[in-house]
């Protein structure tokens, strides 16, 4: 029964975690809108959520380095096993910054709304469970 309780909330828990992380990435983009040479970043939310639910969100395998001179095999930043990628440039700028404020604000508001939607869902699920428990 406890396992089932956990399963009920697992989806939205994973979703909320990833939404919060994505919000942070988007906040970094907005914060660095005036930083020269900064590249806007984001990750594939669908894939990240699939990975998190499949609980194979382990980091990609690293090569063993027996000497500090060895090159790291794969040191890309990942979120739930999905690499943190760079946005394609819509309009270039003279300082090589690729933050498009319209796109970032759009994604930021969208992500915040979906986060709150997930919270509403999880609250409703808890209410359902309580109703089942209390009769």
């Amino acid at each position, binding site marked *: 029964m406890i396992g089932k309780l956990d399963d009920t909330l697992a989806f939205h828990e994973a979703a909320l975690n990833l939404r919060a992380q994505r919000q*942070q990435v988007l906040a*970094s983009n*907005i*914060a660095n809108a*005036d930083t020269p040479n900064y590249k806007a970043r984001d990750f594939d939310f669908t894939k990240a959520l699939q990975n998190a639910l499949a609980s194979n969100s382990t980091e990609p395998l690293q090569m063993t380095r027996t000497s500090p001179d060895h090159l790291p095999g794969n040191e890309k930043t990942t979120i739930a096993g999905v690499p943190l990628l760079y946005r394609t440039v819509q309009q270039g700028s003279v300082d090589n910054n690729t933050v498009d404020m319209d796109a970032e604000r759009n994604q930021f508001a969208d992500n*915040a709304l979906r986060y709150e939607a997930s919270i509403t869902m999880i609250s409703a699920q*808890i209410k359902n469970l309580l109703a089942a428990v209390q009769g």
Partner: protein
Amino acid sequence: MSLFNIFNVSGSAMSAQSQRLNTVASNLANAESVTSSNGQPYRAKQVVFSAVPLAGNEAASGVKVQQVVEDSSPPRKVYDPKNPAADEKGYVSMPNVNVVEEMVNMISASRSYQNNVETMNTAKSMLVKTLTIGQ
């Protein structure tokens, strides 16, 4: 908790932008300062932003003012032979502050600051909403 990091990210951006606004104010205030502490005409100052990854978190980067550089463009020459600071040809070296550029810089800094305040407010409302889970 990712959402708390947004406060660090946006906060660092806000202090960087306010420092930029500070240099704009300094440049505008000294647009007519013929001499400064080193005896030379005042030189316009510009801040240089750089992105710094948060400790232990590659996904988010804050902003810091890497350095404050002085504008190397030549001083503006104004013909005013009666001025005590005039050279033998009667020209006074005025600061190389471009008032139009500074005004544009000011608007850009204040807009970026507002963007970050908005980001922070959104993060705050998300956190408050998170606290309502299960109520």
